[in-house]
């Protein structure tokens, strides 16, 4: 057995493939590439393969992490090139690196993720031009509140996301706001960019519709991983 991680990108129409679909997709891709994955034991064996962080439907990404175990040891470069040959349009294989056999899972190492976000700014709805939006004021609020649907519970809960925003930079251009931001992304603390968008909308008293937003994950920070 040998353990690896893979970094891949997801662009174009492929962004409309859900997290669950991506799992099935990679399982098949490994089979096509004739890379035999190690399987768990039990009545319903499943391949040892998992993503560091799920990616929401509709987001593109330049940096998705997938860890997996193969039955046989093989050069990481070979895995990379074999997989690259069986990818459909929109999914790119960027790197493959071998991992020590025993170690924390990538999901456990993951602490933060960086995103690039484009918001098409609807002047009438938002009450101001994109370049007049008071981002500073927004960030300097004592609390940045959003409604979050908690698992299982039906009623969304109000939470403060301020401490989860690690970095943020922005610029406005022709009624588009472009942001680069780093947000908590891990099991201890996690913030979906959707909630940040919701908070910005809320600050202006408007709702930003999803079709006006484009989000791309550009990087992921994995604590203790030799990236």
């Amino acid at each position: 057995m040998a353990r690896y991680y893979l970094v891949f990108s997801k662009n174009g129409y492929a962004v409309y493939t859900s997290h669950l679909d991506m799992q099935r997709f990679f399982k098949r891709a490994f089979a096509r590439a004739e890379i035999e994955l190690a399987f768990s034991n039990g009545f319903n064996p499943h391949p040892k393969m998992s993503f560091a962080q799920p990616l929401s439907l509709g987001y593109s990404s330049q940096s998705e992490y997938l860890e997996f175990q193969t039955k046989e040891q093989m050069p990481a470069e070979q895995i990379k090139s074999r997989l690259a040959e069986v990818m459909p349009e929109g999914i790119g294989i960027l790197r493959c690196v071998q991992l020590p056999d025993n170690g924390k899972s990538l999901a456990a190492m993951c602490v933060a993720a960086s995103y690039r976000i484009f918001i098409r700014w609807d002047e009438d709805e938002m009450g101001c031009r994109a370049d007049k939006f008071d981002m500073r004021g927004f960030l300097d609020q004592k609390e940045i509140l959003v409604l979050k649907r908690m698992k299982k519970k039906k009623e969304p809960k109000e939470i403060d996301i301020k401490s989860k925003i690690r970095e943020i930079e922005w610029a406005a251009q022709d009624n588009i706001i472009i942001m680069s931001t780093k947000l908590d992304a891990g099991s201890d603390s996690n913030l979906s960019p959707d909630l940040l968008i919701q908070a910005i909308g809320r600050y202006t008293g408007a709702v930003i519709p999803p079709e006006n937003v484009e989000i791309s994950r550009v990087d992921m920070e994995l604590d203790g991983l030799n990236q």
Partner: protein
Amino acid sequence: MSTIHIESLLKKVEKPGRYIGGEFNEIRKDHAAAGTTFAFAFPDLYEIGMSYMGMQILYNIINHEESLLCERVFAPAVDMEKLMREEGVPLFALESKTPVREFDVLGFTLQYEMSFTNMLNMLDLAGIPLHADERGADAPLIIAGGPCAYDPEPLADFVDVFLIGDGEESLPAFLKLYGEYKAAGKSRKAFLQEAVKIQGVYVPRFYEPVYNEDGTLKEVRKLYDGAPDRVRKAMVQELDLAEYPVKPLVPMIEIVQDRAVVELFRGCTRGCRFCQAGMIYRPVRERSPEKIFAIADQVTKNTGQDEMTLLSLSTSDYSHFEEMATDLIDLCTERHVGLSLPSLRLDSFSFKVLNEIQKYRKSGLTFAPEAGTQRLRNVINKNITEENIFSSVRQAIELGWKHIKFYFMMGLPGETLEDLDGIADIAQRVMQLNREMHVAGSSRFNVTVSVSNFVPKAHTPFQWAPQDADFTEKHDYLSAKMKIKGVSFHYHDDPVSRLEAVFARGDRRTGYFLEQAWKNGCKFDSWSENYSAEGWQKAEDAFREKYGYGTDFYRTRERSYEEVLPWDIVDCGVSKAFLMREMEKAKEAVTTDDCRIRCNGCGVNTWAKCPLEGIHG
């Protein structure tokens, strides 16, 4: 060629993965370089259409022709359609996002009658006039095929050309001819006059039905002398020579049948009298075991799918079944691929095989006696005896199966309450048998009984028979009898079965009924949440208003042997005399042998090779 921008729509719909294409093994070609561009439409959702092998077969063959291009299109779900209409986005093909109205030819595959409204809806969404006679040369040529094209008349006003039978040879030939005529700047009319020479091509506008006062057909007048008197189906004689897609598209989203599919054979030798597939796909043509193995090998390699299933009307009838199954099990075990063998006859070998492939998880076992008594099974020529059923059930219980499914039909010709009692009786006795056998875990054992409503189909011995008018009463009757512990009972709603019966044997006038229903918003009719009883009722009223009789005329009326039938224009290869003989035997509850025992003179071997006739005689 133009490309449509759909990104803003995709963000707003429930399942955007239905509209994006880009699957592994997708084929993309240049529109400008293609002699004929063909949009292949499945009038239902992506998940359903992509589960249908016929589309993958033809997609592959057409795209491998240098001068041809094929892209796919499916019916958008209700949420997507709404947005498309609001934003003026026309129906587009998945590969290039080109509007389908810009293709040369748009072809629909007609797998079931309840997709007809979707077909009209798709034409409308594409911005293409519904009626063939309203379309100019700038609109795509609308063609259609599939089992429902064996009675093409309900759609004859909307479709320019039907391609009847196997499409592997006829469709590319047709499309190439189209390209030649287009390149030469010749008219559509000239093209159609030439196209009728291709076997399987039916051009409705070359024929005009003449009706009697009572609404029955008097005759069909030919309007172009060169058109054939009857259109003989196209048929691929040697399946081994037909190209099979060993690099099928692998969907990114989950579809209904999400697995590798290997077609074993076409046709069936059993001759069940209700079964249209068993008649229209004659003669049986088998793939060789070597070819089947090679396909299984390549398909699993090229898709990475971890499940595989075999396609045919009756798996265990395959001549080299044991050899084939053994080889495939080995291949699948080696590759960690789950193999499923549908429609098995449960003999000792099948049990051995099933025990092998379902080692850990025994899924349900399925029996399809179709009728509850031996007498009625003889009527329909379903040659399975109670003894067959019970000895198999006994074995299944012994081997540890805990779930058994039974399929029956209701409303078969000559059915009485006794036959319904027979269904309950079988379920009851299976449960009883399980109790008596005392195997481990016997309390978990359960039985599902599913009853569908019989729909008489064109080109079968029952094509003259009325559809039962009392489904509801019979459902109630049987429901009361089926309150048996451990048995769950399902039946189909009857409104849909009634509509199927109208379109399965409709004439050209039923196209008006269909169009009215579509205008009233009917679509996705087989989904109960979409079914509009009101829309169909209004269509019924409009039909009665126009023609002076209701659609029960097509459904519950018994036809005489002398009557000119709307689908007589189609020659499916089986003679009417044979169908009549079978109908007469049904009335006497007399069975007909399997064609492997002896030839029953259906007529197919007068024009084609029937390789299995009498091989076990």
